[in-house]
């Protein structure tokens, strides 16, 4: 009898480890970014967009972001930190990024992250990042050389100024414009999922502040701009929202 016992234990163990219904103890989370304008998928370069609140007709040609300091808020208010996770999002060609496999399986009620970088990382040696790293300047095209660290958000396009197609450019940079983004939601991360983050691009111009390029300024590199970059950053802070949560195969 004894000689059958050990194989039996092994077989039962193998079978139980193959149970497809068992949830993993930890999961990762893929994040997908969806740029919208007035609740419609944002079309870059070509399509004129009407900003309902300001009355401006706009075109977006670029919306690139650097995010950091991701945190997931669990139902019991505990916080999962992702200290060394950075994301570069190229709005016109949005890719996904992954919060690593350290998330305890469970229910979560919030996701927070920063637009931009902490000072130490912002001013670290940009040549230290490997080619595929979100902070490699050749990859993200958001580094200003030796002078100012990274651009946290590069928003560019055109607006109609008395019938003339006129460029606008808002480059949000410098440590004072590092901006926290808090997203509330309710999502079960008991398995491997993809979470959509929507960006409402019209809110760049109308949210906490109403901004018209022709009046408030059509370009800023975040200095000597009468506070334009700060207002844009604050508008951006509540321009994101949680979208759908989909299952995915890891």
């Amino acid at each position, binding site marked *: 009898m004894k000689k059958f016992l050990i194989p039996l234990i092994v077989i039962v163990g193998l079978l139980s480890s193959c149970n497809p219904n068992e949830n993993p103890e930890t999961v990762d989370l893929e994040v997908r970014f969806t740029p919208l304008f007035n609740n419609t998928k944002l079309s870059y370069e070509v399509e004129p967009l009407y900003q309902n609140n300001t009355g401006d007709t706009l075109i977006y*040609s670029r919306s690139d972001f650097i995010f950091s300091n991701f945190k997931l808020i669990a139902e019991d208010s505990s916080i999962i930190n992702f200290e060394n996770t950075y994301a570069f999002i190229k709005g016109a060609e949005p890719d996904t990024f992954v919060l690593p496999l350290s998330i305890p399986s469970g229910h979560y009620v919030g996701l927070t992250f920063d637009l931009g970088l902490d000072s130490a990382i912002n001013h670290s040696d940009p040549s230290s990042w490997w080619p595929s790293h979100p902070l490699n*300047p050749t990859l993200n095209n958001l580094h*200003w*050389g030796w002078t100012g660290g990274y651009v946290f958000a590069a928003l*560019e396009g055109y607006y109609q100024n008395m019938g003339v197609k006129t*460029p606008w450019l808002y*480059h949000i940079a410098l440590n004072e414009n590092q901006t926290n983004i808090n997203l509330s939601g309710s999502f079960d991360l008991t398995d491997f999922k993809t979470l959509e983050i929507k960006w409402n691009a019209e809110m760049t111009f109308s949210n906490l502040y109403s901004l018209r390029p022709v009046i408030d300024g059509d370009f800023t590199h975040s200095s000597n701009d009468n506070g334009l970059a700060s207002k844009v950053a604050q508008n951006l802070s509540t321009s994101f929202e949680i979208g759908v949560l989909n299952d995915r195969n890891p």
Partner: protein
Amino acid sequence: MIFFKRLISVLWLFLIFSCIDPNGKKPHVTTPYSLPIPQGFPQPALPNDNILTEESIILGRLLFYDPILSLDSSQSCSSCHNPSFGFTDNGKIYSTGVDGSIGTRNSMPLHNLAWSKRFVWDGAMPSLREQALEPIQNPTEMKENILNVVGKLENQPLYEQAFNAAYGDPEISPDKIGLALEQFMLIILSGGASKFDKVNAGIESFTTEEQLGVQLFNAESNPNGSPKGGDCFHCHGGALFTNNTIVNNGLDSVFTDLGKGGITKLEVDNGKFKTPSLRNLAYTPPYMHDGRFQTLEEVMEFYNSEVRSNSPNLAPGMTGFIQSHSNGSQGLNLSLSERQAIVAFLNTLTDTQIETDTLYQNPFN
């Protein structure tokens, strides 16, 4: 125990026989080449399917300098990309092809291409290996059929050896030609040897004028205030002195060359050209895609006051160059001495090593 010993013996025999080529050939061995990335440069995303080796680089260098690649064996790649001119065409506005045809764009320098994602002025080429084969077959350039090139190379024992060394097989193909030329162009670097790099390394110092030039280069446009700014660094910042984007910098209100728009057929891309690196400008006049400016002073004058605000698809990054200022004009409003200071700084980016580095020289000399 006996069974275990036998099993080990069988495994050894298997390992020994698996290392022997059934044709009796030695395994192909190449020498890896590590690109010496200059201080402060970002790490490049080199192609994973064309790992740099000394053998392929040597082959690429032979091909680059060999006129056999052209229709009448009169021109090589180096004819229009001469290292003595920063790998450009000897100060010419446009290059002349084998049959006397004149090109339509200024020959681009070839340094630091390892950091570039799109190639040629309109960004039409997604890889160097594809770009490398284009001028060979272009009717206004080398005007040769690539299969003829393969045939001519096959008759040269030198290339049989060089292809064999690079690929472990003497067979010559267009793909292999492209890959070898890609390798040679990937290793052409400019960085570390210029005065600018030496200042950064603490070895040399800028003059007062050059120092003013640095400040203006890195300062934003401020035409109505003080200090003024040249607003150069947004597109030409970082160690590479280019952001490698393809944009319209406002040269024209009406385009005679559509640039990227000629490739994509999209109106929104008309007038867009690749932002070139500012390294080695002293070697590479004339400037712009059509070589319209003979001197850096002319370039500075353009950016100071001649950017066309009504140019279709003007890059949003050019907004600083079309600001109105108090005297009723538009532009950066830099004084002559300020413009000269920027030019003085730009000249510190000259890297004479590109002209003399034995890695880049003509192997047939």
